[in-house]
């Protein structure tokens, strides 16, 4: 395993220490592994909180700041944070207007956040609403399964909902918007290589030099199927088709994110976006806001994912609103 780390077990603590040193505009609670805004939001505004396993940077810590999150709670690599951590962050960011929890749909995340909101309501009376992001079309959705994974839409949702909270909307309205965004987003991912979890010390799966995995998530879990390595134009098709088959993206402005998994360089991500853009245009989909880069990663995995969000004027306005975070910044 080749990584810029000290010890496998110290990765999270050491990385958070570096994050704190690099970004005076956030405040890191090293004990509870929580990233807060250095300057808290004004009283009376809904607080927006997210969290999950680490290894997806800049998600979530990189999205703490004006116009996006108030706090991000970090679990161990690929492991949801605990209820205690989430509860601590929830109590701290509440200004009286309640807290929105943005949770990616994984059994562990959902259970830990559920326990946290039970605790928060019982012990401190904080009002909590939760949106569970579930947008991965690689996963079949059914009543009898864990449902779709939460992937790329999380980034877009944190931005849009963060802007709404900044405007001073109430908790019910912010939560309703969150659900609306979740329902309008779809993602699909692929990998050229496996990632390596530090504590595991070797790649999660073996992938021959001439094969790729289609339908991967962001935790190094193998995908839905494996197939021969293909040109970028074919890969674009494998990402675009299942998304368009799942939801109609025509007739509305679309936010499109071509996301890198952590080990693929920008030159390749732009190239992939070019292929995707061609297919979307041919399918009559209008990309109003493109976003290309590493936004929700899977450690050092090479590969990419595509997220499309069917937007409207309100969502676009919130998307364009100022955001000042280490991971996403514009308008201020």
């Amino acid at each position, binding site marked *: 395993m080749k990584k810029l780390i000290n010890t496998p077990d110290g990765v999270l603590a050491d990385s958070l220490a570096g994050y704190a040193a690099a970004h005076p505009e956030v405040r890191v609670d090293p004990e509870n592994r929580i990233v807060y805004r250095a300057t808290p939001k004004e009283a009376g505004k809904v607080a927006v909180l997210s969290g999950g*396993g680490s290894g997806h940077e800049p998600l979530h810590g990189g999205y703490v700041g004006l116009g996006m999150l108030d706090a991000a709670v970090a*679990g*161990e*690599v*690929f*492991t*949801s*944070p*605990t*209820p*205690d951590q989430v509860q601590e962050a929830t109590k701290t960011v509440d200004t009286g207007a309640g807290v929105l929890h943005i949770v990616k749909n*994984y*059994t*562990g995340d959902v*259970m*830990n956040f559920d*326990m946290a909101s039970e605790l928060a309501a019982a012990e401190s009376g904080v009002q909590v609403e939760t949106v569970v992001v579930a947008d*991965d079309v*690689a*996963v*079949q959705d059914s009543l*009898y*399964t*864990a449902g779709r*994974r939460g992937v790329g839409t999380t980034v877009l949702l944190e931005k849009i909902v963060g802007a709404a909270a900044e405007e001073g909307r109430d908790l019910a309205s912010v939560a309703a918007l969150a659900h609306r965004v979740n329902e309008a987003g779809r993602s699909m991912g692929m990998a050229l290589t496996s990632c390596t*979890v530090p*504590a*595991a010390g070797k790649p*999660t*799966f073996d992938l021959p030099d001439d094969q790729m995995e289609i339908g991967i*998530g962001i*935790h*190094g*879990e*193998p995908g*839905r*199927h494996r197939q021969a390595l293909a040109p970028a134009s074919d890969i674009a098709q494998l990402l675009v088709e299942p998304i368009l088959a799942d939801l109609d993206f025509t007739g509305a402005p679309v936010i499109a994110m071509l996301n890198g998994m952590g080990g693929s360089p920008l030159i390749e991500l732009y190239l992939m976006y070019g292929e995707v853009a061609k297919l979307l245009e041919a399918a009559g989909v209008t990309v109003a806001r493109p976003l290309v880069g590493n936004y929700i990663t899977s450690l050092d995995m090479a590969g990419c994912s595509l997220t499309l969000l069917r937007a409207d004027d309100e969502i676009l306005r919130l998307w364009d609103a100022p955001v000042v975070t280490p991971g996403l910044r514009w308008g201020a």
Partner: protein
Amino acid sequence: MADVSLDLLTEWLRRFQSLVADNRVYLTELDSAIGDADHGANMDRGMAAVVAKLQEAPPTAVDDLFKRAGMTLVSTVGGASGPLYGTFFLRLGTSLGAESSVTAEALGAGLRAGLEGVLQRGKAEAGDKTMYDALAPALDAFDGVAAGGGTAAQAAHAAFEAAVAGRDATEPLVARKGRASYLGERSAGHLDPGATSTALLFQALDETLAGSAAAE
């Protein structure tokens, strides 16, 4: 028929911790195949914390033992196994009193309360390829022996064997809960990591009680 003492139950958790530590790499390998390669690290981190907590202050009674173990797991593990194992031990502790020992029947009832907690949190059903598939048959076996007048040690041995069988039966299953479910058909052909750690839990109970006073 001797009751199971607080010391033995504490020893059970210690032994579980050491089995988990020994199998850390194996559990993570199982989780690499159909999950996210952290089940060994998660369980090891959690049980190490439990043992450290018990070291700090010895448990005062059987309910205290399991409640503290459960709370420690909830607050140190995260992931799916943290709330599930945590709730399991919390409910087990809650179902027991502030006693210094338990009967085989009471232990069986407590374990079942734990199982109910796991079901409530995780909503798994038989055959979903989760820890439930080792836990449920283990408890059935335990209760069967205990109800028939067997010792706690005999019940634990039966539970261990049933847990192993349950664990092995997860191999051909297509997962419907947890991360493995994302793989669809590709999840078949692999043991479930959580069912495997659950088998270790009953191996630890079996080894602890065998040859102890509870075996009389």
